[in-house]
């Protein structure tokens, strides 16, 4: 037992939890916690906005698999964290957020910078705490890390009033956890595992539909062994890209609204859908009534509430994806690998007949897909790729070939524009040896480019390619397709000189305007390593993301390209 203040106890406990890096913005109520931080080996990265700090902590968590930590003050500091918290809840990102609060004597009095943080964040966190006794701090922080990182990971917030941080207390090693209502199931039920194996043995057209759960559970190795063992083609969701190597003969790419024709169609034709660490999101299923209509569904998830939420499961298995895959492999035992040649050949024929495609004319505008492919070629794929939300995100997910987990970071469930730059900073700070390249849209960029200052000042040399089409591209795509090309409120215009802006913020700035400039400019960007780099890619403003299954539509009706369906007039786009 060591005597210290609540603030010192907080920092001491963070050290005890193995935290090496926190992202935050100080302020009045959290000030006591910042003082001992100065003497701690924990590095503090000063974000320019609390939302940035939150996404940085998310990027760190995505890239490292460890809990990301962010700190903010009371009131606006805490409310600015709501978006990253909601984002982390949707995408199951382990996060601990520490917020200052007005002194307990002022709570409820509408004090300066007071907000009801635990109330506001209740539906945006896996759990949250309001601490009223400095002696509780070590146990609460320990519980917060445990809850954030186990079961289905997620964000946990700890709200600390200023007087509690200032009071003196005795620090001790956190006590054993006392969480009678929190006992995640890890082991799959053996009978269900056996049923699953029997169903797979009898299957003619099985499909493995896998997602972020594989990555969170570090189960990519087990997934690969199992897929090869049972010879089932694999589709990886937006959250699960990298869970299975895209170069593998059984890989089909992404399913869903902008998935590959092959992945979408294979699911529709499948007779057994082996779903692991996925939640049948509407972006994958389209209208769930028409989704995988012939399939018996095996659903493995660590969160029991996901099973049966959208699609009834014929074989429900609650458990950790890695453990259940081990159990499935064990239960498969010495069974012969089934002959699925006919099914796999069909899948390969679709891949050949309906590949992802775009047309890059030599003397035309730069196609965004070409930027992704050129960057892939120049890096050999040896990079962590981070994106925001929209067209650029879909093109990156489609055209980058992901081979390993944790090298693809984006905002999936919540669809948070502006995620890329701060998340890339967090990822780079957590994995400094890694090349971290954000592929961002101009709309997203304009939401969070202030964090480039953080990257420059804190010497976190990320690279950002801005796919500049002067618009909220996905919005204009929908307006072209469903609103007769009336671009209401979606045109960003040409007001920004990106290279100059980058230079002004302490980064290197580059620009490519023609296809032949793309490669050389990217090479230049890759050669700079003493500061962050922003590369503006001036791209074709009319390019759209295909294939596409319109929202709420049936996955049996995939629109492969712009000429396939009547499209509204599009030529008046600036």
């Amino acid at each position, binding site marked *: 037992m060591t005597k210290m203040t609540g603030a010192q106890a907080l920092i001491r406990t963070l050290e005890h939890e193995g935290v090496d890096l926190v992202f935050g913005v100080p302020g009045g109520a959290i000030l006591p916690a910042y003082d001992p931080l100065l003497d701690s080996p924990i590095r503090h990265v000063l974000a320019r906005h609390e939302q940035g700090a939150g996404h940085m902590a998310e990027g760190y968590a995505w890239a490292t698999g460890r809990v990301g930590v962010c700190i903010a003050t009371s009131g606006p500091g805490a409310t600015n964290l709501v978006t990253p918290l909601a984002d982390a809840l949707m995408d199951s990102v382990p996060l601990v957020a520490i917020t200052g609060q007005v002194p307990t004597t002022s709570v409820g009095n509408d004090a300066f910078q007071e907000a009801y943080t*635990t*109330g506001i964040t*209740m*539906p945006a966190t*896996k*759990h949250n705490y*309001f601490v009223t006794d400095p002696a509780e701090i070590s146990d609460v922080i320990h519980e917060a890390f445990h*809850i954030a990182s186990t079961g289905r990971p997620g964000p946990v917030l700890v709200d600390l009033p200023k007087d509690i941080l200032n009071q003196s207390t005795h620090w001790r090693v956190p006590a054993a956890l006392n*969480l*009678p*209502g*929190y006992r995640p*199931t890890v082991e*799959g*039920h053996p009978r*269900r595992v056996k049923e699953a194996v029997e169903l797979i043995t009898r299957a003619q057209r099985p499909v493995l539909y896998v997602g972020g759960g594989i990555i969170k559970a570090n189960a990519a190795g087990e997934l690969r062994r199992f897929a090869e063992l049972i010879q089932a083609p694999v589709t990886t969701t937006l959250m699960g890209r990298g869970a299975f190597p895209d170069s593998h003969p059984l890989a089909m790419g992404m399913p869903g609204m902008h998935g590959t024709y092959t992945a979408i169609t294979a699911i529709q034709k499948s007779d057994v859908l082996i779903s692991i660490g996925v939640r049948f999101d509407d972006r994958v299923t389209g209208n769930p009534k028409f989704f995988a209509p012939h399939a018996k569904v095996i659903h493995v998830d660590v*969160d*029991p*509430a996901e*099973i*049966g*939420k959208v699609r009834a499961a014929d074989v*429900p*298995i*609650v*458990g950790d994806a890695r453990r259940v895959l081990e159990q499935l492999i064990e239960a498969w035992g010495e069974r012969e690998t089934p002959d699925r040649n006919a099914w796999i050949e069909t899948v390969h024929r679709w891949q050949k007949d309906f590949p992802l495609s775009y047309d890059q004319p030599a003397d035309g505008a730069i196609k965004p897909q070409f930027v992704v492919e050129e960057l892939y070629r120049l890096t050999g794929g040896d990079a962590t790729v981070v994106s925001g939300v929209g067209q650029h995100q879909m093109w990156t997910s489609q055209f980058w070939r992901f081979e390993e987990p944790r090298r693809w970071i984006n905002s999936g469930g919540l669809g948070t524009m502006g995620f890329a730059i701060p998340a890339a900073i967090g990822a780079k700070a957590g994995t400094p040896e890694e090349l971290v390249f954000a592929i961002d849209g101009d709309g997203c960029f304009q939401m969070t480019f202030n964090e480039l200052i953080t990257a420059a000042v804190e010497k976190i040399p990320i690279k950002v390619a801005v796919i500049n089409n002067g618009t909220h591209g996905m919005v204009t795509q929908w307006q072209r397709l469903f609103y007769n090309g009336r671009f209401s409120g979606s045109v960003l215009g040409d007001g920004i000189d990106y290279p100059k802006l980058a230079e002004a913020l302490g980064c290197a700035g580059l620009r490519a305007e023609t296809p032949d400039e793309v490669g050389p400019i990217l090479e230049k960007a890759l050669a700079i390593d003493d500061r962050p780099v922003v590369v503006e890619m001036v791209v074709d403003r009319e390019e759209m993301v295909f294939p596409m299954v319109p929202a709420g539509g049936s996955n049996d009706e995939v629109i492969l390209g712009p000429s396939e369906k009547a499209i509204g007039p599009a030529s008046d786009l600036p």
Partner: protein
Amino acid sequence: MNHTLSVIVEDKPGVLARVSSLLARRGFNIHSLAVGPSHEDGMSRMTIVVDAPEVEQVKKQLHKLINVVRISEYEQSVAIEREIMLVRVAGGPGKRGEILEIAAIFDAIAVDVGHNSITFQIAGDPRKVNDFLELIRPYGLVELVKSGRVALAREPKGRPVRLRAVN
């Protein structure tokens, strides 16, 4: 359809808010909610009557709350369900006798008698409480309050349907 859930929660600040906020944001209608201490130290019992076609998803979502320890769904046939109501009925000198006769049949106790009204306390099966209410309604209700339903499972032939992990 009404489903009765008995939920054991940790007795910590804000737990009621977590439960009610979850039910609201997942779109479930609360018919009644009663909360108080349970037989276990540090635990409270909530009896929640939810109006929904099925409650499997409600139970699973509630179970995700860290402070929720156990959830049981009670079917009417296996549960003892009780409610208490205080009701003030308009009734001057001319009507008192009639009203008190009805009350006697239902074991309702007159807890306050004034010049213009009588206040009854009635406790029991929610259907009985409702029947009494309907019979005295024509005399004119001045005010009423209900406790919300509380329930326990019968022993031994009926046991609560416990939520288990779906596997």
